[in-house]
């Protein structure tokens, strides 16, 4: 297994980097059977596993332009997933400190039936909406054509009379500023670890 990325997978990664949702879905289902048992064994809870996997792939999607430089997707995803697992385990420790005063039999069950992750997705979406509204006019236009109208990079290039490269770079810049905006409002999606970037 010396080759981390096959030719086909490389094409898939490029498509995802450019915002192809269907390609993202393919990646998701390809690696879910591998990540799911891994996460489950670490966090030992079906509820938490779902949240961790979701957060992992949200991170992947919001950092999608980096996928083009990835030489080993599987390892990349394990890292993201491990990071999310760590976040969870550490947040449990925080909770544990708060509950330490109660005896074991008094502790409430740690799972709960509310869906913090779905509320979270909604919050993140709201923040992204605001971040997009703050983009300079041309960048916002290109972003809308891509994400709202689902147009491909060549299509946008033709429509606006600019080069596809410019479109692509603009989208990357917009995605970065969205991440910055999110991070200012408490959601860190920036790159936590540097690896496997092809020069």
């Amino acid at each position, binding site marked *: *297994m010396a080759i*981390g990325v096959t030719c086909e997978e490389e094409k898939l990664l490029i498509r995802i980097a450019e915002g192809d*949702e269907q390609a*993202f*879905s393919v990646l*998701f*289902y390809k690696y*879910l*059977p*591998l990540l*799911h*048992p*891994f996460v*489950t*064994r*670490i966090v*030992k*809870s*079906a*509820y938490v*596993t*779902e949240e961790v*996997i*979701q957060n992992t*792939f*949200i991170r992947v*999607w*919001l950092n999608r332009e980096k996928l083009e430089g990835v030489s*080993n997707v*599987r*390892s990349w995803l*394990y*890292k993201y997933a*491990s*990071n999310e*697992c*760590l976040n969870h*385990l550490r947040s449990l420790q925080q909770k544990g400190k708060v509950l330490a005063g109660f005896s*074991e*039999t008094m502790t409430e*069950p*740690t*799972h709960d*039936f*509310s*869906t913090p992750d*779905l509320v979270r*997705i*909604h919050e993140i*979406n709201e923040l*992204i*909406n605001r971040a997009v509204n703050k983009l300079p006019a041309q960048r916002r236009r290109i*972003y*809308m054509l891509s*994400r*709202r109208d689902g147009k491909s990079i060549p299509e946008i290039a033709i429509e606006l009379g600019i080069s596809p490269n410019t479109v692509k770079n603009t989208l990357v810049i917009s*995605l970065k500023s*969205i991440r910055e905006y999110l991070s200012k409002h408490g959601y860190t999606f920036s790159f*936590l670890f540097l*690896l496997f970037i092809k020069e």
Partner: protein
Amino acid sequence: MTAPEIFGSYDRLMDEQRINYLLQRFSDDQLSTEEAEELLVLIREDENQFLSDRISSMSDMYSADDYHSGKWGDMPGKITAIDKPSKNGSNKPVISLRVFRWVAAAAIFIVISYSLWTIFSRQNLEPSVRSAKVRVQDIPPGGNKAVLTLGDGRKIVLDGKGNGALASQGNIRIVKKRDGCVQIEALKPQASGTDNSMLMVQTPRGGKYEIILPDGSRVWLNAESGIRFPSAFTGRVRMVEITGEAYFEVAKKYQIQNSPMKASNPERLPFIVKSGSQETEVLGTHFNINAYDDEGVIKTTLLEGSVRVTATSGERKNLWHQTKLLRPGQQSLIRFAGGSILVKEADTEEAVAWKNNLFRFSDTNLKTVMRQICRWYDVNVDYEGDIQEGHLTGYVSREVPVSRVLRMLEEISDLKFTIEGRKVTVRSK
């Protein structure tokens, strides 16, 4: 070799040993929380693909489940929608987010219209009449009802008012903590050999109850179910027996060690549930057992922790009983007629919906749906004429009269339900 060289290679050797140790613990599912964190940090900082190769090559690290349906079916779409700008204004869902999450696409509309209907109907004194017959002969939902039988045969009815101490027997006290919850309290710590009697709590059709056992474990009983347990958990295991359906949150307990040498290394005190031809061994965890006789199969669904399920019926000649270990999110099925244990990924929400006062059907067979309704409303069902045995998906509160539930079923199927006294008749439209 110079000193740094020696220590350098020593460090590398130690690292490798440590990594191998952690991977072995992971493979055996024996990682402590600290070890898990250590391993996760190593994976995150892994320079070559070494760790991910090792992990993915473990035989049980690739699941063959179909992830395209159920809760994973709409996840990629939800994720990619996260940075889709909304057209104008925000697109907040009209109904509660929680409902939105758990219901399959086909049933979302039904639940929306259902919950809006209940909001409006509360404001009007006269809800719009769809079928006068159904309204007049409606049946209220089940409630907190159970009977506790003490070791000496005394029976205590657990519904009605009045919280606080209900009775005592020997070294235990029965305390009603609140409506629907009773606790069996040990007054003094129990030594082995103490006179130990068996207690029993049973729910009727239309009943449910929560019991806190002498060790702090919590059990929720569904309708037409029961649990037998000792007044004190002495001995090397904690054993209870159930019929019907129960959801457990088992407290971690350790054995009281008499030998001072063992005091610093307490052994876990296992919790074992007998249900028909199955034994479930538990070590501090949350799970649901469905062992109704008329279901034909014993279903055990694990939410958190770990359990070992053993099939205890079958050939007496076989000394070896079938046994399987469950991981969170998995469900085991054992047919009453004996045979093997089937383990599969499960919809844990569906399995414990009853405990949260909900009916939740996820592609559920009609007869199974009707059996659940019969137990909760204490009614009987009659199937008239030729009925397509379809599958139903939906989500509705258990705390409503039966007509509401049946109306929902009518809306999502091509069936018609009528109520006469305590009999529900099902026909094709």
